[in-house]
């Protein structure tokens, strides 16, 4: 070896030894001192700009203030969040890697894809619930349709747009039409925006989309809300009945929660819960919820697990009962 490569080798060796921690090893395991100055990474299983992403970023801001460390949002889109969930499961359970988990991934996706392609709640610890996002059945204002009965009176097959296979949008409408005995064809689109566009343009009769995406159009008078799929009347649409009020048992909501890898020490979970709790109280976050028509669901991990497990069981039962095929193998 000549002298230059030897020097190079020494330099690289020195750098390697000098490099400590970085982004690979994670912080010390001392739970009592959590977060111990190390940053926290929050996975989001969706593309940037969507509701889940915005919620994550709003919370990351606040939590970062509270814990005094950087809280970074990392988008890892794919398979409705299943890819991000898989990565989360492989991370050290020290509270430095979290995920904003979508409810639909937990209680609808398993009904729509093959076994093993959707995560199992039992493999994760849950820190806290965040909020709920309701679905609303809408139609273009010029269609003249106002109630579910109007749809029945159409006398022909109703076409309904969904935001994709295995989504709350599909589930809510399939259940509604099955119970109402209305002959309907699902037309899946790729997300909320194309579905909204199709409904606005009258390409499909109705569509079920998340409230935050539809509310501007409703207020502008371009969309007519028919029913919402919440448990109780949604405060943002006081004049729109719920499907339940209209006589159909179809409670379907999107929900979000903070997940951690299984085995995270309870003291760490406790610190995180407190931090998120303060975040929920912050004025800017509350305003964020209002601006995006989100309903808080700030329950503790245990309650949330019960909520979501119940939802999964309920949906499994009703889809079987009405012979609804959400797609894939079940």
């Amino acid at each position, binding site marked *: 070896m000549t002298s230059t490569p030897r020097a190079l080798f020494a330099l690289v060796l020195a750098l390697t030894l000098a490099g400590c921690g970085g982004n690979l090893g994670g912080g010390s395991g001392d739970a009592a001192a959590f977060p111990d100055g190390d940053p926290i990474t929050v996975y989001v299983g969706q*593309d*940037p*700009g*969507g509701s889940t*992403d*915005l919620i994550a*970023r*709003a919370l990351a*801001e606040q939590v970062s203030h509270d814990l005094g460390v950087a809280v970074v949002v*990392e*988008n*890892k*889109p*794919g*398979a409705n969040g*299943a*890819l991000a969930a*898989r990565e989360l499961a492989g991370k050290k359970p020290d509270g430095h890697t979290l995920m904003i988990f979508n409810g639909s991934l937990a209680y609808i996706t398993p009904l*729509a*894809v*093959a076994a093993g*392609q959707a995560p199992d709640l039992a493999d994760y610890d849950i820190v806290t619930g965040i909020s709920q996002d309701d679905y609303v059945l809408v139609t273009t204002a010029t269609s003249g349709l106002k109630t579910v009965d109007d749809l029945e009176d159409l006398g022909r*097959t109703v*076409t309904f747009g969904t935001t*994709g*296979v*295995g989504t709350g949008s599909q589930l809510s409408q399939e259940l509604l039409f099955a119970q109402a005995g209305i002959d309907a*064809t*699902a*037309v*899946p*689109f*790729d997300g909320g*925006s*194309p579905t*909204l*566009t*199709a409904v*606005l*343009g*009258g*390409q*499909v009769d109705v569509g079920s989309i998340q409230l*935050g995406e539809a*509310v*501007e*159009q409703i*207020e*502008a008078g*371009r969309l007519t809300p028919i029913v919402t799929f919440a448990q109780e009347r949604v405060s943002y649409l006081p004049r729109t009945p719920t499907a339940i009020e209209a006589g159909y048992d179809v409670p379907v909501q999107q929900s979000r929660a903070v997940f951690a890898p299984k085995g995270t020490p309870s003291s760490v979970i406790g610190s995180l819960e407190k931090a998120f709790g303060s975040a929920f109280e912050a004025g800017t976050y509350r*305003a*964020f919820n209002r*601006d*995006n028509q989100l309903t808080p669901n700030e329950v503790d991990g245990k309650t949330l697990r019960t909520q979501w497990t119940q939802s999964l069981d309920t949906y499994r039962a009703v889809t079987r009962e009405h012979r609804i095929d*959400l*797609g*894939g193998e079940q």
Partner: protein
Amino acid sequence: MDIGPVIDGFGVVLEPANLLYCLIGVVIGMLVGVLPGLGPAATIAILLPVTFEIEAVGAVIMLAGIFYGAQYGGTITSVLLKLPGEASSVVTVFDGHALARQGRAGTALGIAAVGSFVGGTVSVVAMSVLAPVVAGFALDFGPPEYTALALLGILLVSTVAGGGRLKALIAACLGLLLAVVGRDAFTGGERFTFGSLDLADGLDFVPIAMGLFGLGEILHSLEQRHRAVHAPVAVHDVWPSRADLRQSSGAIGRGSVLGFVLGILPGGGAVMASLAAYALEKRRSPHPERFGQGAVEGVAAPETANNAAATSSFIPLLTLGIPANATMAVIFGALLVQGVAPGPQLVEENPELFWGVVNSMYVGNVLLLIMSIPLVGLFVRVLRVRPAVLAPITVLITLVGAYTVNNSTFDIALVVAFGALGYLMKKLGLEPGPLVLAFVLGTLLEDSLRRSLLLFGGDPTGFVTRPISGVLLAAFVVVALLPLARGRRREPVDQVR
């Protein structure tokens, strides 16, 4: 139309703070466009926290600048390194890189700059005047119309490929096949994913394009290097000549209109626009064989069209509150965080924001043009670097860039796999252009076709009875038959050598 708010909008833009944001956005955008893999959507997401501190108008001005700045940055790597960063830059590769290999990279980049400027500006003017009218038009575009459009696109793909027809068709079919991989959008069933969760959402355009074009080219040149002395290509010019500009003027004009119209359509505007503009020029030209060998119109047309389309894609967001593509979705999110809800009432409730953003695009386009004058000379120097040094740097940037698409190492493996495929294809005389374009259009075609059939209840006559799709299908037939009619007329010319 009430001129008052429009003038006020200019007042907003010319505030020093907003001018600065515009400049920052456009510069970042250009840099981001140059980096393969990292797209404007991801960049905007990264910068979101920064925008919380800025006022809404300034934030959107900056983010908009990033978006159309990135279109121009993508051109740079297409021309110099044969590496398209976005789907809308693929078509630029054909003639842009050919020009670079002839030592005329400056011409290519310069024409692209001029075309982009004109296309963007025409689009903004049209937007200012026509936005509400045109937004309604976008809503009339349903699945049947998209089907017809996609059919037209696939037809055009076979036109633009140089070289053997048969091999171009094979490449296109491979592209269609790759588009099928993933979950079926209608039943949720996996297709050709072999159980892999990473493939469940299908393949992304970026790793495929970067692998086939960039890495494939580099791997191939490894083979050549020892058998020829490769002097770096001497650069003959840094700006297009007056003759070049004159020659491209028609292409630029037509590209602007085409780009504006197609950009309004949610989901797919810019790619179709660049493809259609290129194909139009090639078909109109009395010497179509020049295309693919370094025809300036071959760069002017797609570049003008994709910038025009990028600008008009703001229309659905600003007038309807519906984001037309991934970048618009992030900008939508940024606005929501600022407490501005984009929707049909944005123009009335927030005219300074609406017009401030629209008018900032004039400024942004001017800034890009001014900046490109010295920068073209700089970028062109990249070609003077020894290939032995340029190659590994490009490889590394490509591999790291692949990671940034989805923050996943799987995409790195994908880009390498496609690099191998790109090398093999080059050896076998298959061109990557048709494959990549068919890949992009294939999903649109199949999904739109199946949606249309669901809407029609299985009855295909609906395609013809709906006015817009009927017109488009007629255009499809005309365009398909055109070469047959012209072929007989053009034979004598083709034989002149």
